[in-house]
């Protein structure tokens, strides 16, 4: 038995190192990405890519901080944008103060100030919500979200009303002598603070508070009989999650130099739920996947189509129904098979799954796009184009092609997924057999 123990710890240690290198590699990729899309002819960065990457950084912080509640503490909040947005509004005011010289804080520390402001707001609202859990918690956070969202439109002195508040990020005060005039400089500030935030939140999961947040999620009553007050645990977790969201909001303020009521709104709060859940709330890294994916979809797909919400909605429902662990959960279940070195056995089944799934995807997207161009597109005077060819959305052919992909593809997918299920079951059976 002791041999088995040492073996598992050895594997664990190896895995731990692998993970560290993966994290480092991701940071390197994040640092290098702007240069991949650098246009060497004009000597300019791709503005679109930089905006998208910056947005992804903020959303990673936002989604991870949200998962401190949903995944780690089992608290479903519908008002998390409040802390993102309030962090953003605070930062805008700090920037203005720094701009006119009343606040001698360098740019690099602005996100810290934004985070601390949101931490403060998190403590105020945390005192109100920490009494609740489950559905009541969802409702009270939704109420706070709606309240703050409506206030943001109503009050001009702090929120700027419908127009929002803007500021100039060139405050001429920096630790490293950078003036943050170009987006790429801002992007590196975002990378730095995203890394700080991610490391901070990862650290929190390995502290007594993080452990007790998990404990209260699993069984709050038992936590009470161990000396802990679940309300206090919720309070600290909520306030800290707010603080990290505030860092994201501060980065938002610095990047766009304007914050509007959207930043505290219900839409962004809903986005937090989508990102964390689609990415996978059961693991630490899941929300990062979700944040990157949703940001890509939001800025990439919405360029081509205005139906991204329906794709996200369908994906979300599919994940709730079929893969509650999210994308990360789907990756994790391959873990035992990968460790046993059997992953290659899944290649062929996956390829067989790919073709019908692709057909279904094409058919579904086709129908959605045809539908939306028939109504919304027509109203906006847009036409559907595919590979440079105009497609008449009123003709029967494109509809038939889409349906032809969707329906037989769906049937085919159903057959293949059953076959895949059998292969999968056999593999996991084998593994169990081997463990015995």
């Amino acid at each position: 038995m002791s041999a088995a123990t040492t073996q598992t710890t050895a594997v664990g240690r190896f895995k731990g190192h692998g993970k560290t290198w993966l994290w480092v590699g991701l940071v390197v990729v994040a640092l290098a990405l702007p240069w991949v899309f650098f246009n060497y002819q004009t000597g300019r960065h791709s503005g679109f890519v930089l905006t998208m990457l910056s947005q992804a950084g903020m959303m990673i912080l936002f989604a991870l901080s949200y998962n401190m509640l949903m995944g780690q503490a089992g608290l479903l909040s519908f008002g998390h944008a409040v802390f993102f947005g309030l962090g953003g509004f605070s930062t805008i005011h700090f920037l203005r103060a720094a701009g006119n010289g009343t606040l001698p804080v360098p740019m690099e520390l602005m996100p810290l100030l934004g985070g601390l402001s949101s931490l403060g707001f998190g403590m105020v609202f945390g005192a109100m919500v920490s009494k609740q859990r489950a559905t009541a918690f969802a409702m009270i956070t939704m109420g706070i979200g709606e309240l703050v969202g409506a206030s943001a439109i109503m009050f001009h002195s702090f929120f700027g009303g419908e127009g929002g508040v803007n500021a100039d990020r060139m405050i001429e005060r920096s630790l490293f002598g950078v003036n943050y005039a170009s987006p790429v400089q801002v992007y590196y500030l975002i990378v730095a603070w995203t890394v700080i935030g991610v490391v901070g939140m990862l650290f929190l999961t390995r502290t007594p508070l993080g452990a007790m947040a998990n404990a209260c999620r699993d069984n709050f009553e038992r936590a009470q009989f161990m000396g802990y007050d679940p309300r206090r645990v919720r309070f600290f977790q909520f306030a800290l999650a707010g603080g990290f969201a505030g860092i994201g909001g501060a980065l938002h303020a610095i990047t766009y130099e304007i914050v509007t009521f959207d930043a505290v709104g219900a839409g962004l709060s809903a986005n937090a739920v989508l990102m964390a859940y689609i990415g996978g709330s059961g693991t630490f890294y899941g929300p990062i996947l979700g944040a990157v994916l949703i940001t890509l979809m939001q800025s990439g797909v919405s360029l081509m189509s205005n139906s991204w919400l329906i794709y996200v909605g369908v994906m979300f429902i599919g994940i709730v129904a079929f893969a509650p662990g999210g994308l990360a959960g789907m990756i994790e279940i391959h873990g035992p098979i990968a460790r046993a070195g059997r992953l290659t056995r899944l290649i062929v089944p996956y390829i067989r799954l790919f073709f019908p799934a692709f057909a279904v995807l094409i058919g579904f997207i086709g129908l959605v796009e045809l539908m939306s161009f028939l109504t919304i597109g027509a109203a906006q005077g847009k036409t559907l184009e595919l590979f440079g060819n105009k497609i008449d959305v009123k003709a029967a052919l494109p509809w038939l092609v889409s349906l032809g992909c969707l329906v037989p593809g769906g049937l085919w997918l159903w057959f293949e997924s059953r076959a895949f299920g059998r292969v999968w079951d056999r593999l996991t059976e084998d593994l169990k057999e081997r463990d015995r």
Partner: protein
Amino acid sequence: MSLSTTTAAVSLRDVRKNFGPAEIIRGVNLDIREGERHAMIGPNGAGKTTCFNLISGRFPITSGGISLHGERIDGLAPQEINRKGLSRSFQITSIFHRMSVFENIRCALLWAHDYRYSFWSPLWRQKRLNEEAERLLDDLNLLSRRDLQAGLLSYADQRALEIGITIAGGATVILLDEPTAGMSHSETEYAIALIRRVTEGKTLLMVEHDMRVVFDLADTITVLVYGEVIASGPPAEIRANRAVQEAYLGALDE
């Protein structure tokens, strides 16, 4: 064995509990001496688990008084009672299903090690804490399943973990609610040995249905019927008590 001191470890004075119009606990008086192993028995619905819930602060009492080492604890929240040195287990296994076995035990140690709500101490560097958790796991014979998700443990192992979580915090008064419920014969044997081992030198109050366990383990037995104590005393005395035989034991012996 007679460690009897002037103040009892736990003492209930005329404790009553109503749920709506129904009186479930009807004036219970009970003293549990320091260091004794006390078993509470009685037919289903007698109010044994309710008694546990009242002592541990899960439900508020309707009237009367409960004290721990002479200090009133009724009206306190469960966590406050726990911090005064009373810990309990649950009849329905109550562990942290999605956390590893090791983390379950470590969480149970946190408050006793004075970490409170710390979000600044990295758990992996707390040598003393981790070593104690390992030692306890070894004691519970769960060390080989250290990194397994607690929800995936076998039933008997979950019960052992339940006991482990209960005693981990170093409470001096331990309440065990049917620790051997649903166990096979050999598992029960093992559980009794485990309970005996880990509650050494502590005050133990347990609810149990298995009479073998009760007479094997307990120094004192209290019989609760319809929310009232009908007898309390050493096992031999209880075995001989007519009222108990009529109300309870007789039916079981046949």
